[in-house]
């Protein structure tokens, strides 16, 4: 048991010390052909992803991949909410990000965060992509609720859909912190202003998202 623990600890140290290579263009293009490999990009290999952002390596391709992933992965949840409005959740994710992104970048620069427009956009899109991925994972659960729940005064399938959507957004916000602060290289580049910028920005993001959800009639 002790040997096993020692082995695991040494493996862990080895992983931290080894050089991290960013995702190449071939890998990113490969993800467009096999979209489920995007899970590795945003969740499985966060250190490589952070290296891409920190080194500004293949950012345009990364932006394209993340934008397509966000839109595509959000469609099933939207379809379960209502076939005619299958696009609404994808529009919510991309729309709220588009509205709030300028404030994140400009305030970040003003307070000393040394990242470019493209880097800010990639980090924010990674957060939306994780939200979209979780909506994909929660779509079968929502489908199950819609099939098994009938009209009720207290808990409705629409209410459960909103609750699941909030869970997915929470996962995306967690990813935003994880990417922005979890990687040493990127955290050094972003600097100590990260928290004073991200927390107030998240308040704005939540307000805008809730308003946009109302406009798109999600959950009503």
């Amino acid at each position, binding site marked *: 048991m002790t040997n096993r623990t020692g082995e695991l600890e040494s493996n862990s140290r080895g992983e931290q010390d080894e050089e991290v290579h960013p995702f190449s263009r071939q890998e990113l293009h490969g993800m467009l052909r096999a979209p489920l490999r995007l899970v590795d990009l945003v*969740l499985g290999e966060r250190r490589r992803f952070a290296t891409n952002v920190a080194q500004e390596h293949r950012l345009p391709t990364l932006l394209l991949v993340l934008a397509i992933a966000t839109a595509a992965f959000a469609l099933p949840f939207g379809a379960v909410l209502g076939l005619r409005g299958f696009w609404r959740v994808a529009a919510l994710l991309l729309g709220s990000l588009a509205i709030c992104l300028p404030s994140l970048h400009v305030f970040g620069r003003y307070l000393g965060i040394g990242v470019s427009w493209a880097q800010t956009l990639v980090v924010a899109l990674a957060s939306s992509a994780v939200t979209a991925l979780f909506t994909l*994972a929660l779509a079968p659960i929502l489908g*199950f609720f819609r099939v098994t729940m009938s*009209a009720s*005064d*207290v808990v409705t399938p629409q209410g459960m859909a909103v609750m699941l959507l909030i869970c997915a957004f929470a996962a995306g916000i967690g990813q935003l912190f994880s990417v922005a602060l979890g990687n040493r290289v990127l955290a050094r580049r972003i600097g100590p202003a990260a928290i004073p910028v991200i927390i107030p920005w998240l308040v704005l993001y939540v307000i805008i998202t809730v308003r946009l959800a109302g406009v798109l009639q999600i959950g009503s």
Partner: protein
Amino acid sequence: MRRDVATLLLASAVYGFSIGCVHSTRFGLNNLIKFPLLILITGAACAVAYYLWALLIGGARFRFADVQRLAMRLYRDAAVLLAALAPANWFLARTITPPDATSLHQYPLFLGVNVCFIAVAGALALFRQVRALAQYHPWPLSRRVITVSGWLALSLMVGGQAAWTLRPFFGVRSISGAETPFFIGSMPDCRGSTNFYEGVYNVVRPAPFAPDYSRRGRDWN
């Protein structure tokens, strides 16, 4: 993996039979199908979410099959532990004072004992899978606990509604088994609840004030 699934189905069927016998052998036989079905529906609906949750918390490269294996072993362990309690449970089911038209008698006690059984089996299975996760990645203990607890919370959220749809598993014996459908679905219960969450809300919400509540607790009236 196949052996794990077979063990899970068999063990859950055995436990399901023992709880159904509190009503009748007919309910017990129904549970041979319904209880494994409950676990299969819950596992299938949550499969992708388990995987993404493990990746989100751990940040490590996991294979989808590994996560499914770990999550399924959580169910399997709990089911095997519950199956081990099935003989005792069956004995209790057949010997409690059954409900009648005037009172539920010892039926609530049987329900309470089973809640304890499920809680103990679930907690033990949880601890074991927290340890098993270390074999896949050397995460700190806190991350493993959060990962497995997240799986459990997700399972409770979906499993609660699945159980509500597939009910009755227990059943008050004074209600005729011949008149009860195989599963009730979203038909309202005695409090009017039509889904699991509404059922929980109706159980825990405070009782309404009595019409004369403002006059109570005073000496003058």
